[in-house]
């Protein structure tokens, strides 16, 4: 996670070329508690930074996946819909949410690096 970028809404973003993979941080899953439902955006659609890009529901409450960057959704992790609990187990690896083709790579500059995020949640 050292190379990832982080949003104030507790999403992580890992960039490979112009493709960003987005998930929620371990801190976020701890705060949410047991995740019981995940709703993902349509592949081929677009997401816009700061807007809802999906739904994460724990036993207690529903919350939104807030898009940390903008772009076209090129892939979603459908396994989360069948096994939402994997978000609690592997939030920063296999339980990623969506991959987007970045429409504005400069948005990444507005995100925190690893150390800044650790300070943010401390």
């Amino acid at each position: 996670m050292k190379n990832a970028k982080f949003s104030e809404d507790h999403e992580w973003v890992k960039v490979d070329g112009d493709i960003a993979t987005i998930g929620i941080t371990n801190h976020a899953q701890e705060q949410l508690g047991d995740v019981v439902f995940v709703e993902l955006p349509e592949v081929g659609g677009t997401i816009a930074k700061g807007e809802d890009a999906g739904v994460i529901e724990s036993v207690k409450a529903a919350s939104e996946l807030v898009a940390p960057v903008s772009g076209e959704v090129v892939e979603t992790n459908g396994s989360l819909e069948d096994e939402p609990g994997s978000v609690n187990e592997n939030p920063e690896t296999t339980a990623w949410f969506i991959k987007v083709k970045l429409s504005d790579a400069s948005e990444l500059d507005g995100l925190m690096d690893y150390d800044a995020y650790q300070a943010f949640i401390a």
Partner: protein
Amino acid sequence: MSDLLKTPLYDLHVENGGRMVGFAGYDMPVQYKTGIVSEHIHTREKAGLFDVSHMGQAFLIGPDHETVAAALEKLVPADILNLGKGQQRYTQLINEDGGIIDDLMVTRQQDDEGTLYLVVNAGCKQGDYDWIRKHLPHGIHLEEHSDHALIALQGPAAVDVIAKHCPQAVDMAFMDGIASQFKLGDEDIEIHISRSGYTGEDGYEISVANDKVRAVADALLANDDVILIGLGARDSLRLEAGLCLYGHDIDMETSPIEAGLLWSIGKRRRQEGGFIGQERILREIAEKPSRRRVGIKPLGRAPARDGTEIQNLEGEKIGEITSGGFGPSVGGPVAMGYVQAAFASPETKVQLIVRGKALEAEISRMPFVPHNFKR
């Protein structure tokens, strides 16, 4: 957060990693380290210990049972007069319009003739006490029992755990409530124990002095089968059990008949009335209410929460969800709410409007998980 009240078990919650939240004016644990789902499942399979000390405990005291029962019967529709010694009953305080001020447990004390033990909801207790006092006749008074904590031990293993400390409790039946002792080493701690709870499981509720509750809780937690359970699992357990949460499933506007609580109204009371708010309640018994509380099973995976609109298949609003979430034992979403009477039959197909989308659901029988009471 500093103005939140603490129960006598506050330190126990914090020491065990309780995630503390404000609830009804108290700083309470919503969950501990392992989380709501595992706490929920543990309670259904073994036993869970709940701190419910935020709830209100009080005694209604008068010269004899008949006089005290008659006074309370003015305020609740249950048959209190014929409550046996050492028996507990569920009922509701009813307002002038037939709505529910609060729901509560009433126990006729085994020895103390003329004393009823009341347990009311935390968020309602001051209003309840004011309401009761305002309507009490001369010679009967309400005494708050605020120097006592209340804990619940719930689940199939509860009986074996309690047997080590209070053998008398083993043979109690569901809704028995007695004064007894909790044996701890050489000490006999005075308790009031009832075989009841709010999870749908067998179990006990134990009232004990504030300065003794930690010792009792520690003794119960020393059993491998017992873990602490927070408010989150308490909510999912009671929802699966089809039990009402005051302020959500019942409130000042809902009547006990709409809420499906007719079973808690004694036959004699249905015939004789004699309680505040009886006009609406007796009318709804005779004519059936226009809306009813029902179980709702979303057919997909998405939970539908409190406030979700319920529509018929034509897209017309027929009601609203009042409690909804994920049922860990059911393994999927469960909910309850009110619908127009014409749509209240089990298996009626409805749709729930969640984030602007219509989700398939059907009216369900409750409880969602069979009750496991010791009858």
